[in-house]
């Protein structure tokens, strides 16, 4: 247990090791991790959400959205990073590409299922009221699909945060994973401290997104009681990393 006490001391020193030259601070590495994950998520969001929502809206391409999503989800993250390194070399480009590629499938699948699965009677009623396809999408399908779309975003975000730390194993330096990959400089206490920071970061991201999900869920859906307390925390289906 002494190791864990030392780990918290390491966190208290903001990632410095006594007697060693100054190291990148924990705060800095945490922010870098969040930055890389954020950029990758932004790239993946821009590709996945419009595509998934559009396919769901026209009720086409379920094969692409669901089956390809399933196959894609099976890709082991470290293997994808490693193959990327072989082609692109070690660097931010490879990491961002691998992270974005891995983040896309849960978001496409969920966005597709969310919009495609909106009650057809509701869509017909909206059409009967004279709404155009665009209005139906914006005023009916998207608000009703929000919880499921957001669940996909949460699954991807969690996955991207953990894969960002794994990228350290493929030689990319600039995330909290660096510390875990460098026990020689940081000793066991530093490695443990970094592991604690990574775990806390993932939990914070998960809780923050769960909170955000509640904020954006339309009031009507909350009143209908479709979302209970635990579902806000438990991701739909996805892959951990």
């Amino acid at each position, binding site marked *: 247990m002494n190791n864990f006490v030392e780990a918290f001391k390491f966190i208290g020193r903001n990632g410095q090791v006594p007697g060693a030259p100054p190291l990148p601070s924990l705060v800095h590495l945490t922010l870098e991790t969040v930055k890389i994950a954020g950029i990758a998520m932004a790239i993946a969001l821009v590709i996945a959400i419009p595509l998934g929502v559009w396919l769901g809206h026209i009720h086409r391409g379920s094969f692409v959205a669901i089956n390809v999503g399933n196959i894609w989800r099976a890709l*082991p993250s470290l293997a994808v990073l490693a193959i990327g390194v*072989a082609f692109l070399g070690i660097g931010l480009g490879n990491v961002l590409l691998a992270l974005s590629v891995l983040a896309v499938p849960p978001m496409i699948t969920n966005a597709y299922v969310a919009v495609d699965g909106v009650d057809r009677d509701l869509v017909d009623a909206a059409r009967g009221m004279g709404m155009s396809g665009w209005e139906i999408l914006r005023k009916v399908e998207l608000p009703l699909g929000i919880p499921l779309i957001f669940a996909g975003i949460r699954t991807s975000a969690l996955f991207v945060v953990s894969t960002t730390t794994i990228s350290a*194993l*493929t*030689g990319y330096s600039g995330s909290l994973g660096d510390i875990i990959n460098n026990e020689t400089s940081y000793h066991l206490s530093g490695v*443990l401290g970094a*592991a604690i920071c990574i*775990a806390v970061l993932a939990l914070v991201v998960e809780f923050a997104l769960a909170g955000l999900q509640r904020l954006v869920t339309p009031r009507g859906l909350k009143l209908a009681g479709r979302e209970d307390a635990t579902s806000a925390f438990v991701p739909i289906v996805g892959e*951990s990393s």
Partner: protein
Amino acid sequence: MTVVFAATPVIPNFGGGSSQFACERANRLFCPNWVSRNWATVLWPALRQHVELTLIAVAIGFVLSTALALTAYRRHWVERPVLIITAILYTIPSLALFELLEPLPGFGLSRTTAEVALVSYTLLILFRNTLTGLREVPAEVRDAARGMGMSDRQSLLRVELPLALPAIIAGLRIATVTVISLATVASLIDNEGLGSPILAAISNEVFKTELIVAGGMAVLLALLADGLLVLLQRRLTPWTRARAV
């Protein structure tokens, strides 16, 4: 982590600049000669270990989560605490969990540490899918089973569990590909599985052939396992296809 370097086998598998093979000296994308020389000593053992790690983790996870799901099916209050605990385990990134388990007594840099972490990632998925599958059995079907004189136990084994099979196997598919993916990261802890050659290649001047072959094998293994489970599901639940036609 220093273990990364220990992943290099006793016989150096890459001579780098000093290799007698031009392809390997130039570090080209794919050197078939290297693969055939290292298949039996590096790649095949890594694949076998990877399959072992996966089977053990999924089997233990399946037994644990099925037991938990059956308990929660009868006693509703069990569901919430199990969901919250397994969700937290699932949320902790693998790299962190492996390192957090390592200093605990009895763990260390061993297969036990790897397996405990891998099992912990299967629990949420398997528990939820099994429980949801059981809950979605229509009440009329359960009533019919009772009407035919089945006991609770008979109804569970002969009616409810078989009807929940598609959901259970869907959970097994996700759990299996998740474990295959995370088992590559586990190499950091127990230096076995397909992550081992990947980490060795990175520390060995980023040897491309090894990265592509080991990475490719991990990807193919995941796709193959997923495909086999789809076939298993079709075999065990022929009625789901009949209904779809």
